[in-house]
């Protein structure tokens, strides 16, 4: 029994300190306003306060902290991207994640499980090799493994996939991990508020004041706020915010759905993804299979669920793991994803001075939480893009300088 639990047990849980402070009144001025109290926004606030000494910061969250895509994703962390820009960025994120529990003093259940991206065709094998080569060039542990190695690494997997699209091999990414998503938001929220940041839940931004090309405040449903910088770190609502700032972006909103089964005893230790079958699956520390697929086929600003999503997913999962046929889906849900044309985020400075954007996270924003927070904090503090996010800059579309992740990640959790 760890000492910490002994202490709680002997002293009584009622003596536990508050995780979050009592909510404060909303003031009429802050140095920095961060829109969005998910992992990204809270991390940015934390790093602004701790690394850059900027503590007069308000995080405004329309619902509750971590209630957007931070709390709706399937919690996978990895860095096996295709482009060097992507690999460097996510590798930095993985490294931060690995030590985050200790830094934030909260057990995030960061669990390195290994991550297989199955390939069912020559084309897919080529892409896997491309990713493996780029990853290894940048010291990220990814390798192409053959069909037999997949069979050994994922007991119970039907390599013939029920009779069509047999597995030919996979990209194996040893650092692939899962982590308790909610706890990431809570850990950052606590650490940020401990350093002077204010987090205001149930506070919706309704407008933005821009004068002479410079942002000078936001309007909320609890009153107006003057500020020197506004950082939009929302997902699903990005176009509403950029519209307030008078900016056009390529971002479109597509629902992304997920579901879990009832808990069963652990049988799946690794994370398994199949781009061809459009599924990804892992087993949580509670014993549930956590599963998802690609985004819904049409733009929609809604978190409604669809039955065809679970039907299609079940069809594929039963092909991959026939013995899971009796497992029962317990719950399905959806988030709203910011999709960009090149499957890469849009980060950093914008044509509106003092307005910073951290958006376009598609279906993979959660795994970037620490690095987005830290690079955005650096960007805001210095008013220039951190080098790791420069490839993801706002104006790359105007220059036709897109990021080449599209080849890798139609379903890349």
């Amino acid at each position, binding site marked *: 029994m760890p000492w*910490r*639990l*002994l202490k*709680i*047990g002997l002293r*009584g*849980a*009622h003596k*536990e300190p508050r*995780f*979050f402070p*009592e909510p404060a009144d909303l003031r009429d001025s802050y140095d920095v306003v961060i829109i969005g109290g998910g992992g990204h926004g809270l991390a940015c606030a934390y790093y602004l306060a701790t690394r850059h000494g900027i503590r007069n910061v308000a995080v405004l969250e329309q*619902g*509750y*902290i*971590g*209630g957007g895509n931070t*709390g709706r994703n399937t919690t996978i962390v990895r860095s096996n991207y295709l482009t060097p820009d992507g690999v460097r960025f996510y590798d930095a994120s993985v490294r931060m994640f690995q030590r985050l*529990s*200790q830094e934030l003093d*909260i*057990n995030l259940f960061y669990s390195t499980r290994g991550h297989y991206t199955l390939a069912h065709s020559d*084309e897919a094998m*080529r892409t896997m090799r491309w990713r493996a*080569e780029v990853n290894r*060039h940048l010291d990220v542990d990814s390798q192409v493994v053959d069909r037999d190695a997949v069979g050994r690494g994922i007991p119970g997997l039907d390599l013939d996939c*029920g*009779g*069509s*699209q047999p597995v030919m091999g996979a990209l194996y990414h040893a650092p692939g991990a899962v982590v308790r998503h*909610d706890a990431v938001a809570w850990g950052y929220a606590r650490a940020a508020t401990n350093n002077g940041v204010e987090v205001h839940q149930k506070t919706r931004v309704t407008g933005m004041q821009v004068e002479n090309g410079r942002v000078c405040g936001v309007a909320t449903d609890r009153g107006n706020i003057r500020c020197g910088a506004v950082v939009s770190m929302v997902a699903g609502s990005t176009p509403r915010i950029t519209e307030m700032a008078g900016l056009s972006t390529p971002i479109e909103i597509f629902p992304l759905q997920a579901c879990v*089964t*009832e*808990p*069963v*005893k*652990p*049988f799946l230790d690794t994370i398994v993804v199949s781009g061809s079958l459009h599924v990804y699956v892992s087993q949580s*520390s509670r*014993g549930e299979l956590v599963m998802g697929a690609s985004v819904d086929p049409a733009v929609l600003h809604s978190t409604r669920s669809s*039955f065809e999503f*679970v*039907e299609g*997913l*079940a*069809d594929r999962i*039963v092909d991959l793991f026939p*013995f899971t*046929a009796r*497992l*029962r*889906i*317990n*719950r*399905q849900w959806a988030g709203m994803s910011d999709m960009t*044309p090149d499957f890469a985020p849009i980060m950093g400075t914008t044509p509106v001075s003092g307005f910073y954007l951290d958006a376009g996270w598609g279906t993979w924003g959660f795994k970037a939480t620490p690095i987005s927070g830290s690079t955005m904090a650096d960007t805001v503090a210095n008013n220039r893009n951190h080098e790791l996010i420069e490839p993801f800059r706002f104006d790359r579309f105007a220059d*036709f300088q*897109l990021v*080449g992740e*599209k080849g890798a990640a139609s379903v890349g959790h």
Partner: protein
Amino acid sequence: MPFRRSEAGPREWIDRHRTVHFTFEGTRYVAFAGDTITSALQANGVQLLGRSFKYHRPRGALSMANHDVNALFTTADDTNVRGDVTPVTDALDVRPVNVSGSLARDAHRHLDRLGRFLPAGFYYKAFHKPRWLFPYWERLIRRRAGLGTVDSAWTPRRRPKRYGYCDVLVVGGGPAGLQAALGAAEASLDVLLVDENPHLGGSLDYEWVTDPAAPAQRDELMEAVAASPAIRVLTSAVALGFYTDHWVPVSTPEGIIKVRARGVVLATGVIEQPAVFRNNDLPGVLMASAAQRLLHRFGVQACERAVLQVNNPEGFAAAEDLRRGGVELQAVVASGPGVQKADAAALVDAGVPVHFGWAIVEAHGDGAVAAATIAPVDAGGVPDQTHARRIDCDGVVSSAGWGPAGHLLYQAGGRFSYDDTLEMPVPVAWPDTVVPAGRMNGVFSLASQRDDGRDAAGRLAAALAGGPVSDPMSNRDTRAHATPWPVVPHPKGRDFVDLDEDLQYKDLIQGAREGFDNVELLKRFTTVGMGPSQGKHSNLNAFRILARYLGQGMDETGTTTARPMYHPVRLEDLAGRRMRPWRETPVQAWHGEHGGFLMESGEWERPSFYGEEADAQQVIASEVTAVRTGVGIIDVSTLGKIEVLGPDAATLLDGSYTMRQGNLRAGLTRYALRTDDTGVIVDDGVVGRLAEDHYYLTATSSHAEGTYQTLTRHALEWGLDVHVVNRTGQLGALNLTGPLSRRVLEPLVDVDLSEAALPRLGMTDARVCGEWARLLRVGFVGELGYEIHAPAGTMARIWDALMDAGAPLGIRPFGVDTQRVLRLEKGHIIVGQDTDGLTNPFEAAMPWAVHLKKPWFVGRPALAHLKGAEQRKLVRFVMAADSSAPLPRESHLVIRDGTIAGRVTSIARSPTLGRPIGLAMVDRDLAEAGQALAIRGDGGRMLAAEVVTETFYDPDGLRQNADAPEVTP
């Protein structure tokens, strides 16, 4: 101690004439057909049915309504089976879940004593320091995870899903649902009535039994429903969720039926909510409706001597019901606004001690209930412990209140509000075509439930007729049916709010105190409502606790989202029949019969080559040689084949492709490259012109449908008078190619094959073997060749005839892998392999394919700017012929100065040239003739290559002359 009554009840589900034998934990038991696992075990006196998720506390029956997730079982071919609703069958072998050893002597039962060290969210607060120890803790914790165990030998039962259509779907076959179904049928609507139970009747089966008027009403309703030709009934059928456009999947024992209804009546009833007091989880503590279900459906008496907590009129009725059923009522405690003394008259008359203003504060027992402590409570529900009294009993039954089974209404866009009179949430808004009825709608008496069902059907009929929908009649009750505070916290805890997740009162308070003080955060921190029953008997009490903690109202406190599924549903049922449609070319059978090594390619299966996999390299090389020196034939029926007709045909193709197609002469073809708005290459193919207003074009196999869609959309978008016909499936195609191809074909056609008559890139309709066909003199592989397109019905005949005619000349069929080598020798790209999702034609070294002289085509605006701006370029490279080192593979990287400078997109050892050749996408400044490339191969070995500019094979295209001396007969 529960036991089976000897006399049969009028509504029993069991068939006392048929016994079944089953085994539980190795012990053999007898049950009746119709028993569930739980009812059978209860009848056999077995109360200990499971161990809880976290503390491994003993648990028994609670709801008997598909919410008993502490009584889950594993059978030979299933797990997490809910004992309260799953029938026992003969020879069924049932084991408990989440138990190490036996239920009674579960090795983890001591965890219960560690509860104080494992408060809500404990795992966030420990195990992470030091970092290196976490994996150890994690393994330990992970081993504890989960409930049932899956068996890797299980095989899926994939059954077809079915579709159901109706005017009105009624969910719930209780009094309101039955009446609603009748009402809708009377309005000439086609009705589907579904109920999750094996029999219709709902609460009429077990709850209204003591109401003298009820049996007649039940019989009347059931008979009318059975007699109505407009009503179809499905029992054991769970409506899983409500999805967009009245799409309600219904799970049945035979699989899922996806029901599309025009309107839905939700008469889904209420879910009884437990009272919270110390040890309220002991086997023998159950809800009144559960005791009644056991009694009337299964003839099982839940206990012999009970203490009852009653907070509503239903509770008094249940008490009287149990008393008449033979249970000795040791005490009935009753408190709160739902209690009227008049309701207890029968009990009092029968001499039952009824304590008004009292509540249960604790249950006692070791593994099963042995006693209960009751005490007076004040108006706020706080007990006066000084007057507490302990009463021996073997059952504790509570009727504390109800929560609406409003999941589907919520999913349909309905809203609920907490009714302070009824003391439960009730619907306050819903769509016109999705109407609540009955107890879920706050309607309680039997008569008013029927009124509400009739009213719901009437309003739904009006909505479906498009007429005005009247305001709902309010049939809602005007008195409380619950206590607003069914919670008696105990200083020593074990007062469970969520039995799925082992959450006690103090866990919720602790969560709120730590700042997780809204419903969503509290849920996520404590996991309340996240267990298998999804909060069906924990959410309402948890929200009450949070509301009281925050000093605010229930509506202000809010609720979590009720997501599908209503009850969990098996993956195999969701998956349904396995359906993977595939397509076959007209020559498919031939490939199989002649050694084709078949590989899946999208919806098709195509031969990679003809031979054994082990000999692939040699076979491919010999097929290449056959094509280069003799004649080969390949099935290319998978190509997209599209006919474009009409006065604007040329405009459509000029606008859709990068090259000019409008100036093409009839009888000729031209390469066709398609880009998107961003200038990125999408697909390529060949466009041929047959007449001024008639084109025929091909697209790659994977873009056949996409090309058709793009062209038809542009036709509309640009207002063109043109007709686009996708003939991909209707026509087959083959490519007969090699220097001897003309000699093979000539005797079989009715057209002149000379270079003058059918020149290179020419196209003509002809008769091949007497059948209509279209000949295209195009060659992906760089030899003289004829693509022959013909109707699928005649293609095989043509193929066979060519094989026969070519036999003396050594004709060889060749596969896709061979074709890839051949085209690489010729330097042709494969879109999607040599290009990626961002490659434009300039990067692909195909500036000649971009006709910027055209004022407009899709991609032109972008390509006009991208010309000359490319930062990378596709190059040809060669490697030393004598190298014995393994070749680099496709996707290996080009490295310069330790950084990535490109990648190999295609590579092969060329049988024709005798050396390795390839294509690579490299940084622009490396794209010069003679430039040395360093390619990192397997194992990090660096391999040298050299950029060349000239086409590897036959740069001047001399081999494609139909009149060349070696090709003419």
